[in-house]
């Protein structure tokens, strides 16, 4: 049976893992390769490395970080943050990333999705959508959640799929870092509208939040960062909990 995936996100700045609350007030959580190794031992299904303050000068440091993680871990690895063109994508793919995640650049130029899907296959292209509640709809934000993109999240997800995206990484800006649970309404709305997997992100605070997002939220995968970083809850304990709630898990 196809398992629901548990994905750990490493938000990296200057080679160190950090995690913010509502994208602000970053605090340090350690060395990315060490954390990746720990998650792998605990049975994480996939890793995402996000370069949260990507600049051109830092790009080379990022490739080194990706290379250090990819050298010893043989699970899917996605890299995102500041990927603007196929040159940026090829730098992280050459360093060992299996997937790249596009956000602001895809909003600015949606044809980039198709170009990268043609180059690496759709399975390698994730479109990341940061969404915020706006009445009874969900609005898309660019530039790490700071700029309204003037798009509806469900419509944008469908367009991304049509243009060749292989997965959607959907983050609720309202919930991110709050530990008040995933936005299941947002997740279910997007998941019902597309036929590609949807990774829910933002708000994980308890094991039961994951149960909710896999059932009510219809998510194919759930991503979290801070809940894992400070060893509050182990990945293995979470997966055992979900399995007991009849959510199919990979238990290694």
């Amino acid at each position, binding site marked *: *049976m*196809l*398992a*629901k*995936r548990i994905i750990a996100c490493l938000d990296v700045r200057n080679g160190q893992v950090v995690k913010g609350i509502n994208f602000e007030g970053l605090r340090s959580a350690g060395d990315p390769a060490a954390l990746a190794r720990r998650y*792998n031992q605990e049975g994480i*299904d996939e890793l995402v490395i996000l370069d949260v303050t990507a600049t051109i000068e830092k790009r080379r440091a990022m490739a080194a970080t990706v290379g250090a993680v*990819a*050298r*010893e871990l*043989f*699970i*899917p690895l996605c890299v995102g943050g500041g990927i603007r063109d196929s040159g940026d994508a090829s730098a992280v*793919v*050459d*360093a*060992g990333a*299996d997937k790249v995640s596009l956000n602001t650049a895809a909003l600015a130029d949606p044809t980039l999705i198709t170009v990268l899907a043609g180059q*690496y*296959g*759709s*399975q*390698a292209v994730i479109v990341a959508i940061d969404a915020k509640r706006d009445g009874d709809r969900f609005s898309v934000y660019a530039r790490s959640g700071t700029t309204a993109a003037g798009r509806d999240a469900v419509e944008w997800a469908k367009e991304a799929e049509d243009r060749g995206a*292989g*997965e959607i990484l959907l983050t609720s800006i309202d919930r991110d870092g709050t530990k008040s649970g995933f936005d299941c309404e947002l997740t279910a709305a997007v998941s019902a509208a597309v*036929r*590609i*997997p949807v990774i829910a992100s933002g708000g994980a605070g308890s094991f039961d939040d994951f149960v909710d997002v896999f059932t009510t939220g219809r998510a*194919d*995968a759930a991503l979290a960062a801070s809940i894992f970083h400070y060893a509050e809850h182990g990945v293995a304990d979470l997966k055992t909990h979900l399995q007991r709630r009849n959510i199919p898990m*990979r238990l*290694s």
Partner: protein
Amino acid sequence: MSIALVDYGAGNLTSVRKAFAYLGAGVLVPATPGDLDGVDAVVVPGVGHFQATRSLTPEWRAAILGSLDRGRPLLGICVGMQWLYEGSTEAPDCEGLGVIPGRCTRLGGGSDALKVPHVGWNTLAMPRDSLLFEGVPPEASVYFTHSYAGPVNEATAAVTEYGERFAAAVEQGLVMGVQFHPEKSGATGLRILSNFLRRVSSLAAAAV
């Protein structure tokens, strides 16, 4: 021991290369079909569309079949495994190598109930013993990402279910294939690749 990783432009080879390097195997990427002459095994990786296998020209096909004739194992990964069959409905005018009977078809039979592509970790069932899965426990999980798959038949070494039962792996003499990504399947995937390498090295040693 030298493993030829055939690069026909279907996705990136970095992960497969890193996994073989981690297991201590030397990998070369042949520039021409003639470069397959002295190798101990051929690996055909690949992600994406079956159409990409069009780059495996008659010269490449002849060289790959020639390597099999010399007793060298062949491993297809993902689209590389689909190519071992006679073809795929994804690109009906594109011929497969045809060393495994049958044609690959789209998962879910066009039904809307199932999300396609099939992405993530799914379990294996082994209908019989095989070298590829030696020491791999039943119900082990591996990582998939694909929309098409090959039919279950006498060559099948592992079966996975996603809407339907499909061949997760084939093993028929020296011909082996995996629909999943062993290079992305953690310890289980490394075990499968090292089983393949053990077979390659024992055959290479026997040939000296």
